[in-house]
């Protein structure tokens, strides 16, 4: 075993750098600290991790240590331990995987990985790696961000373009916020394919993902409990509607999620955009939706000034109440229980790389939900580091 590794390392020409024959271990880490003040003008829930009209540091504070061990030219092992404020600083293994690299261009990874739905999915927690304090929350709208299973990453080139193909398959049991409650979510046959094309100043990405999911029914929302009680027995001339309850419950929902995005970094200008859509076979509490953002930034020395517009829109299908009479007061109740918002957000921000491996960021954002008339302003700052 030992001699085989020595040969592997010698072949790579790394014998000078990796004198320890057993394994080369790399330690890396990142941390973010900061805080934000969420000024809610009407309604709650637009900046869900921040408390109402108070200063909160939890949404930003986090620290992670990553260790990678290259065992030989074929196998490496990576683990990333992350403690973050939104999880009460409980240390959690965000990534745990073993990589098989049959050649320089192919990696097969097994374990707990990031679910690669978006451009920034892979390094969502690494604030230092992107311009904002956090990725646009109207678009990056899921509370889960991992998958347990396997993936394959293949790097190649098409003429002068560098290409990366990724396919993944797995399952995830986690939590998703719904009606202000963190509810167990079970995502099965979670799989997808994405590819990235890049050339100098331009990067393009497309992803297509499918899954079957269940989310437990919320228990602590009084309005919802009253609605379910009302629907389970007849009222006056109107019958009970157990099928409407069943439609609302999130069981065995088949979802397809796709996204396309582009990143341009041309001289001092930065432009980032992503468009995403979630399509589910049947309406439940969760509606089909679409969300996108566009960011424009200008680098002035060590300072990046940027502006981002983002929009999220639910597209509910109300046919699940078509069996109910227009006169039945429970019909509007059932229809108002599904996700139905149309929110826009404008964010202005600044990133200042004031020291090596350290960036200071400050942002103001204004979010507006046209359908429910919710409004909130958020002012936040952070210091992001990598080490």
């Amino acid at each position: 075993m030992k001699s085989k590794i020595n040969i592997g390392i010698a072949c790579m020409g790394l014998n000078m750098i990796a004198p320890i024959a057993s394994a080369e271990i790399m330690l890396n880490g990142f941390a973010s600290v900061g805080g934000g003040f969420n000024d809610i003008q009407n309604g709650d829930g637009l900046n869900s991790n921040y408390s109402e009209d108070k200063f909160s540091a939890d949404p930003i504070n986090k620290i992670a240590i990553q260790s990678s061990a290259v065992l030989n030219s074929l196998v490496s092992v990576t683990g990333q331990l992350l403690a973050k404020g939104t999880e009460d600083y409980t240390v959690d293994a965000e990534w745990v995987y073993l990589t098989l690299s049959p050649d320089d261009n192919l990696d097969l990874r097994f374990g707990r990985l990031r679910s690669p739905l978006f451009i920034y999915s892979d390094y969502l927690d690494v604030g230092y790696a992107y311009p904002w304090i956090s990725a646009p929350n109207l678009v990056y709208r899921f509370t889960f961000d991992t998958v347990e299973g396997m993936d394959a990453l293949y790097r190649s080139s098409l003429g002068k373009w560098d290409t990366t193909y990724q396919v993944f398959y797995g399952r995830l049991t986690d939590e998703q916020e719904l009606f202000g409650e963190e509810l167990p979510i079970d995502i099965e046959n979670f799989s997808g394919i994405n590819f990235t094309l890049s050339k100098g100043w331009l990067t393009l990405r497309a992803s297509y993902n499918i899954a079957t999911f269940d989310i437990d029914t919320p228990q602590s929302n009084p309005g919802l409990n009253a609605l379910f009680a009302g629907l389970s027995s007849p009222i006056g001339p109107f019958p009970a509607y157990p099928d409407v309850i069943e439609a609302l419950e999130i069981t065995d929902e088949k979802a397809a999620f796709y996204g396309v995005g582009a990143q341009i970094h041309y001289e001092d200008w930065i432009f980032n955009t992503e468009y995403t859509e979630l399509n589910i076979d049947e309406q439940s509490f969760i509606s089909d939706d679409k969300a996108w953002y566009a960011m424009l930034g200008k680098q002035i020395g060590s300072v990046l000034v940027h502006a981002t517009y983002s929009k999220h829109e639910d597209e509910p299908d109300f046919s699940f109440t078509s069996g109910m009479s227009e006169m039945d007061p429970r019909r509007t109740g059932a229809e108002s229980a599904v996700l139905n918002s149309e929110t826009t957000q404008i964010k202005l921000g600044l990133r200042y790389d004031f020291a090596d491996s350290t960036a200071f960021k400050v942002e103001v954002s204004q979010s507006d939900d046209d359908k429910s008339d919710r409004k909130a302003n958020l002012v936040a700052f952070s210091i992001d580091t990598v080490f």
Partner: protein
Amino acid sequence: MNKQTKRSWNFIFALVWAALVPAAVNAEVAVIAHPSQNLTVSPDELERIFLGKLKQVDGQSIVPINLKMGSPVRKDFNEKVLGKTESQLKSYWSRLVFTGKAQPPKDVESESEMLELIARNPNMVGYIDKSNLTPAVKLIASF
């Protein structure tokens, strides 16, 4: 001001001039490889090698080596060949490191260490100030 101090000021000025000028104006970065290496790399390929995007040239593994952070030659190389500042590169690598996709090139402490390492390893590519070039390595490009 007497003549003596004036002269010493001139001397200091000349020293500062000598120290600054080659780095600021005349410095040329020499990209180097092992003497046995018949490699020809385009500036574009070189950029991709140092950004971890290209790991083989003509079917042969290539391992890039950096000078340590803070070295003026490294800064020059980053700007001329990679077209990026140190903090843009740090951000770029953090995206790959924390997703387990790649590690940045190894650093060496000094140009003499770079020369020694390149002279011994046929697969490595590095860079030094062109004025420090020795016959122990082969010049494959200069910027």
